[in-house]
């Protein structure tokens, strides 16, 4: 494994040695979103094994890594006990940091960003803030337009957020970490 290889970095960060994968495909077979993926989990493992730069780029640009639900089914059944979700976490973080998020996944990533924005702001998630932030950033202004009032009527939405008290200490956790990207 070359130090420049993505597989080497994966191993350093997650402890997963992709060479152990013998391509049985059980991860893909059990993946709830396998059908929808452009690169399926076992294929991504194979591409990582190849050490081929173009393949590595393809992985980071893929839709698959964002479609993964982290349901852990693949890991729980993998005969080699490879922690694929952890590998995907690493790939996602890298793809996001390098601005390589697949356009089809932008709503997923927007949602995650809105989520963390909301958390950073209040310390806890205020669902109303999240939904509004997501709507603005995703442009899906009319999605679930009837849902919010119904939730509100069932007492499931609060208009005002709760704040945590130790704002300073909490802000430290976000420092130098997750950057808001105004995209």
């Amino acid at each position: 494994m070359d130090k420049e290889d993505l597989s080497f970095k994966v191993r350093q960060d997650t402890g997963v040695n992709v060479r152990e994968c013998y391509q049985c495909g059980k991860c893909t077979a059990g993946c709830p979103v396998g059908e929808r993926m452009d690169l399926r989990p076992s294929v991504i493992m194979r591409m990582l094994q190849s050490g081929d730069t173009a393949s590595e780029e393809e992985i980071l640009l893929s839709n698959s890594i964002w479609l993964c639900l982290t349901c852990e089914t693949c890991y729980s059944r993998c005969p080699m006990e490879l922690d694929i979700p952890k590998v995907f976490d690493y790939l996602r973080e890298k793809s996001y940091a390098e601005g390589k998020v697949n356009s089809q996944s932008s709503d997923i990533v927007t949602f995650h960003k809105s989520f963390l924005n909301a958390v950073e702001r209040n310390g806890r998630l205020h669902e109303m803030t999240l939904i509004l932030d997501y709507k603005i950033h995703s442009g899906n202004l009319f999605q679930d337009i009837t849902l919010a009032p119904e939730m509100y009527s069932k007492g499931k939405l609060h208009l005002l957020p709760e704040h945590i008290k130790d704002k300073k200490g909490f802000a430290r956790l976000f420092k130098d970490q997750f950057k808001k990207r105004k995209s």
Partner: protein
Amino acid sequence: MKIGFYPGCSLTGSSREYNESLLAIAKEAGIELVEINDWNCCGATAAHNLNKELSLSLPARNLAIAESEEMDELVVPCAACFNRLVMTQHELSEKKDLKKVISEKLQMPFKNEIRILNVLQFLEKHIVPRLDQLVKSPLEIDVACYYGCLLVRPQNVMKSERFEDPMSMDTIMQKLGANPIDWPFKTECCGAGFSISKTEIVGELSGKIVRNATGRGAKAIVVACPMCHSNLDMRRPAIDSYLNMKMDIPVIYITQAIALAMGLTPRQAGIQRHFVPVNLTVNR
């Protein structure tokens, strides 16, 4: 003994009824759940998808707070929060250098030793032993116990033995007088965090779950996770559109089932907050 309680964000909002019913049954059983002070969001899926350090530091702050309040146990009813907290505890106990980094960020004493209980573990330990006295009106219906992903996987970290076919919720439901069915979708994924961003995926995955449960004769689906609940209940229109038919099977929290069996009113159990109407007297 003080039992610490970490509600998590959902329980203060979209899954209020889970919180209400849990506190109601704890009160019935004479157990005090002490909400830990100034807790924060666990970071959920978003944090571990985008930033590893945040995915560890956010849960770690809560663990450190619980420790500082000298809690022996911390009950985390939300399966997603539970999973993040346990994963963090595991990761930081395996990797000492990482723990050092996080501890420095927290600037709090942090031993990483607290015992974290999910709702089923909490019920088994503290409520089930008292159920014999507390069950007033048994629920005599066929139910499908749905565990989802986060309570059972990864099995080595969650310490779940029967991760393909868990039974702990089934056993509790049996004790409430219900008949839990044997079905193969107990731990299939519902679509989790895609509720808003990829609603159509939730419709498909949750639809398969609802279809199998209904097909096997269940009259209600019992859950222990706010995400599963909102996907199966609130996202029913997406499910119906995927299945191309209207499904009316209700989805209740295990804590609501216990509350009802204890004879509490549906309102006390928060049943009125559901999107799919709940009628549990079907096969009486």
